[in-house]
């Protein structure tokens, strides 16, 4: 795969992966690192003959593995009593909106499985079937988990918003 192909694939597929990483790990710079790692793995597989749909599915699944590896590692070392990481929220214009910032923070308080089902279904607007494939769940589980996740999110946000 040459530089041009890498650039094309990155520009085409990275936005959703980057958003997924940012909202899941709740740290923009780490999300950038992890997104890069996903694409490095993709390039290293050397398989360039897949369709865009297959590429996207592969990237999403790999992103999930990498993100959860990171979260596991992070949880493992959270006991170390050092300076906590202060995430800078105002990194994008929309974070200046108080309500969006509130949603971002509330999302970060949910458990990872709730976070990712909301990301894929509500933010990325994937179908139930697509979400089920990425998460390796059945469609019923996606529906139920999303319902519970939305309830939990509303609770975290103070229950003031309606769908």
């Amino acid at each position, binding site marked *: *795969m*040459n*530089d041009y192909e*890498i*650039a094309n694939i*990155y*520009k085409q597929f*990275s*936005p959703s992966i*980057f*958003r997924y990483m*940012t*909202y899941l790990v709740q*740290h923009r*710079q*780490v999300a*950038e*690192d992890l*997104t*890069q*790692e996903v*694409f*490095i793995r993709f*390039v*290293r597989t050397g398989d360039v003959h897949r369709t865009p749909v297959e590429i996207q599915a592969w990237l999403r699944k790999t992103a999930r593995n990498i993100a959860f590896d*990171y979260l596991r*590692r*992070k949880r493992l*070392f*959270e006991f*170390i009593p*050092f*300076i906590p*990481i202060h995430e800078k929220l105002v990194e*994008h214009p*929309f974070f200046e*909106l108080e*309500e*969006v910032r509130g*949603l*971002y923070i509330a999302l970060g308080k949910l458990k990872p499985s709730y976070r990712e089902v909301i990301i894929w279904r*509500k*933010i*990325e*607007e994937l179908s139930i079937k697509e979400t089920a494939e990425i998460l390796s769940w059945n469609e019923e589980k996606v529906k139920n988990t999303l319902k519970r996740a*939305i309830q939990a999110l509303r609770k975290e946000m103070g229950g*003031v*918003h*309606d*769908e």
Partner: protein
Amino acid sequence: MMNEEKLFEQMRKLKQTDTEQNTSIQAITDATTRPIRNWVVSIIGTASIIAICLLTFYLVTLESNTPVTSSSENQTINKVYYFTNGNRDEHTFFEKWSPLYLHVGVVNDPKMLEQFQSFLQDMILRSKDDYYNSWYGNDFSAMDILIMYDDGSERRLKELSSSFFLDMKTDELFYIPSDNWLDFSREFFKNPNAAWGKIIGILLLFFAPFSMTLWFKRKFPIIKYREWSLNWTHHLLNYLAIVTILVGFSYWESNYGTFHIVVYTTIWLVYGACQVAYRLKKGEHMRSIQLTIINHIIGTVALVLCVF
């Protein structure tokens, strides 16, 4: 007030800027398609690793020939080995392979050997009772001495206290009455490799971690800029820590005598562990953490060489 759908729509707008995307693409390209092109950096890094291996091997295997057991006092001294063991247990005599020894040295300088021989000829036989009844017997860190003569024979002495020596073969106790013996012995028994150790240690300390870092930077461009800035800051902190440790070492040595190298190394390694823990806590890339660990191992070898 926006409803949830509108909020999610806003969140969908998050994306990297063009500059950020291009930087990421460059990093991916570098990590996947480009070989290491800076051969100079690569060679320096490789040479540093080989140098560390050789120096470690040198430190571990220094002067480890097995001494033969015989004794002669009529031959010219060919060579003197000395072993600083830091304890007074007579059974550890010449167990230089034992970790109890702080260091092993060899003296080859003919003038020094000649002077040493004249001191040995002046030795006066003393009874052990006299020695043990004197105030000398306590609180002294002994040195073991192996004297090799031209004919291949040897003599083994254990320094029981300043100027008192026990001949390990004949079990006789000797006293060296010369007034300037203590001054001479300090010069005589200093580590002959100390100067080289310091030079190599300081060179290694300054150049090897830099080379290693540059090599990592080429090899693993995935490590982010913010992590590199932390790397360079840590280099600076490492140098300050080393300087502090060396100044502390000099002060302690000049005021209180020998202090165990393990203490300095432990301080350094604990400091390194704190750095690694801090980086893990910050969620840094594993390659960056590996680099910190490697640089601390280099620093450990350099520190040992400087203090040895």
